[in-house]
């Protein structure tokens, strides 16, 4: 029986309620326009699209299907984000196939001062991936070519519209893996990941994109193509310009090509899911794991019982352990199975004997490893839940994770259905998901923001560990960055995009 059939069988069993449909739980027409929801936001003095603009684009994008107009198509998917919290009013989607086409488009937009919203997989969680008003949507979805893979050095060069999961499958053919991974892998594109400096589940082991991206090609607001597409691990010749584009959320340029250093596929991957009686035990488990697993540790995630309950309720995924207040999901990756197993057994014995873990399960086979990861990766997946959700992402001292979760629970009380705390404990990055009824969204947001940002700032954390600022947090940037730093950012933006046409209203306040 092949793997595909087995997956179908298992999915039928496990997923009676799994529907990945994004539209059944809330109709897109019911989502308020961002501009209505935040009346203080004012549209910049950008040009309003005219027919002759569309004619000009048609001369640049000559293949059919490259221009989508609201007159003929339903653009609501492009105008709305994954969380269904923001909605723009764009009338035009452009889908270029090359950096040259983007260069011509931006050259034209810059002349005419037409605002542009750059979009990859549209999986962002801070309202940065869709227009705020009527910005033209520039989608990279057609730029999905893998250009080259050097199987000896492990350097993969590809266009920015490639979907992460496809890249990872491709790399695995050559016994390599993409050095980062996130729950959105089936839809997110590498250009977007680079532009937001995505962290993900394996940052602990493979580091951030600032390290693994070796080079990129980007188009500036005026259409200039900047070629920094190097495949060298070390290259100290001049200013490292690619770093400007990594994490600047499309503000400074549109990333069109990327070269990334892949990691060798580990021979042995094991995952342990442990149940912990309290938060103190979670921290002790982390400490012991770092000590006893050391170099083979490739992920350390935690989740509280509310988060585990959410995946059970919304997606029908069963936790193999009894109910515990906290769970730790620990992954090891190594080149030698018996060596890793020995280390793991020592660690697990320690954890159980020391009482930090009350119980646990261990998965060594790929099928079981995947099953356990689902419990963590799909927490943000609403499944068929009709409720709304709000997501937060902070860098904070790990000692404070549970305290923050409890503070939120107390503050929001009965106004919300649940507050889940989970995240990349090993990186000091907490995620919080608030589940609530749609009609309470405004009230809950007012209760939470800026309270939660100010609390995190006061504890010297970051208001956004990996999700970025987008439109959700840009006005609070001063809570995490000094005035002088933000000033310099604004000066850089002015210099690189003087008319401010790239992703306006986002990232900077």
């Amino acid at each position, binding site marked *: *029986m092949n*793997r595909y059939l087995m997956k179908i069988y298992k999915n039928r069993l496990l997923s009676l309620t799994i529907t990945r449909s994004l539209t059944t739980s809330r109709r897109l027409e019911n989502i308020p326009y961002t501009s209505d929801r935040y009346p203080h936001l004012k549209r910049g003095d950008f040009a309003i699209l005219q027919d002759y603009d569309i004619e000009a684009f048609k001369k640049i994008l000559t293949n059919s299907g490259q221009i989508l107009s609201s007159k003929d198509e339903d653009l609501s998917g492009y105008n709305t984000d994954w969380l269904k919290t923001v909605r723009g009013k764009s009338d035009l989607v452009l889908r270029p196939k090359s950096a040259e086409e983007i260069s011509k488009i931006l050259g034209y937009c810059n002349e005419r001062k037409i605002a542009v919203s750059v979009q990859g997989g549209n999986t962002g969680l801070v309202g940065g991936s869709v227009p705020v008003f009527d910005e033209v949507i520039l989608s990279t979805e057609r730029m999905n070519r893998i250009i080259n893979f050097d199987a000896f050095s492990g350097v993969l060069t590809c266009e920015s519209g490639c979907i992460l999961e496809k890249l990872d499958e491709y790399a695995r053919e050559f016994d390599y893996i993409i050095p980062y991974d996130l729950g959105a892998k089936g839809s997110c594109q590498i250009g977007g990941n680079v532009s937001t400096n995505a962290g993900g589940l394996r940052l602990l082991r493979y580091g951030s994109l600032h390290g693994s991206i070796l080079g990129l090609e980007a188009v500036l607001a005026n259409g200039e193509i900047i070629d920094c597409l190097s495949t060298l691990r070390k290259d100290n010749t001049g200013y490292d310009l690619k770093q400007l584009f990594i994490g600047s959320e499309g503000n400074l340029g549109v990333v069109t090509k990327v070269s990334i250093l892949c990691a060798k596929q580990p021979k042995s991957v094991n995952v342990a899911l442990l149940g912990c009686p309290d938060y103190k035990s979670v921290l002790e488990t982390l400490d012991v794991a770092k000590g006893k697993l050391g170099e083979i540790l490739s992920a350390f995630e935690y989740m509280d019982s509310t988060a585990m309950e959410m995946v059970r309720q919304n997606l029908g995924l*069963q936790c*193999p352990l009894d109910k515990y207040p906290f769970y730790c999901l620990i992954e090891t990756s190594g080149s030698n199975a018996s060596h890793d197993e020995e280390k793991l057994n020592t660690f697990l014995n320690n954890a*159980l004997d020391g009482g930090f873990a009350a119980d646990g*399960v261990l*998965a060594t086979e790929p*099928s079981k490893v995947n099953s356990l990861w689902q419990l963590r990766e799909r927490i943000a997946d609403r499944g068929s839940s009709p409720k709304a959700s709000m997501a937060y992402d902070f860098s904070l001292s790990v000692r404070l994770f549970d305290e923050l979760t409890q503070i939120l629970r107390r503050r929001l009380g009965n106004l919300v259905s649940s507050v889940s705390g989970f995240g990349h404990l090993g990186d000091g990055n907490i995620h919080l998901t608030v589940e609530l009824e749609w009609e309470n969204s405004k009230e809950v947001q007012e209760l939470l923001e800026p309270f939660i940002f100010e609390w995190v700032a006061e504890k010297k954390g970051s208001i956004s560990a990996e999700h970025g600022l987008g439109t959700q947090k840009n006005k609070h940037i001063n809570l995490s960055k000094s005035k002088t730093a933000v000033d310099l950012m604004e000066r850089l933006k002015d210099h690189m995009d003087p008319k401010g046409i790239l992703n306006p209203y986002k990232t900077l306040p």
Partner: protein
Amino acid sequence: MALRILVGCKRVIDYAVKVRVKPDKSGVVTEGVKHSMNPFDEIGIEEAVRMKEKKLASEIIVVSCGPQQCQETIRTALAMGADKGIHIDIPAADLSKVEPYHISKIFAKLATENKADVVIVGKQAIDGDNNQTGQMIAANLDWPQATFASKIEKDGDGLKVTREIDGGLETINLKLPTVITTDLRLNEPRYATLPNIMKAKKKPIEKKTAADLGVDLTPKQQVISVEDPPVREAGQKVEDVSQLIEKLKGAGVV
């Protein structure tokens, strides 16, 4: 009821692994590839453990045939709740020539020797996909059989089994001793928890060979070649609906 249950667990390539055909077309690559327990056998062990928890069964013996690594598969079953294991040692090189026919003879012998009341095996293994072993075991023992079981219940002195068949569900009564093969909907197997994995290390695993049981492993079939399924021909991508209609018209389909 205090049934003694013999459960078969086959060590197969893990279903999440991409299978590759050997260049000489003699089989698939198994060296260095992640293996795990056949999912249908996992369901079998789970059912046996549940029967023990319901006090229908008193002892669970798990059997696996193959090279030394089968002992890992047996340990997983022991960690799930089986009491003891029997490893029928067959070297990896010879394993590819062993057929359901031979396995059924081994199981028949073990069932008699161990005075088993029920033999549970998966309906098929995900590598061979034969769906023959359970049926052949019953034939060798001249026992009744219930294949594709999705529910097993006590019924007086025997068992009542619901089977998944093409037309729907069939419920039959079985006298003991009997053979049952498991289907997907019978249960959802538990994960072995760490304390149980520790306990399982102390449970006994007996090692035998097919020869010890008087079973001859001479193959009755010969695999001529193993090939990849034909590569799907590239389709044609169209940019939009009007192009699609153009192509369909061109192909004379519309």
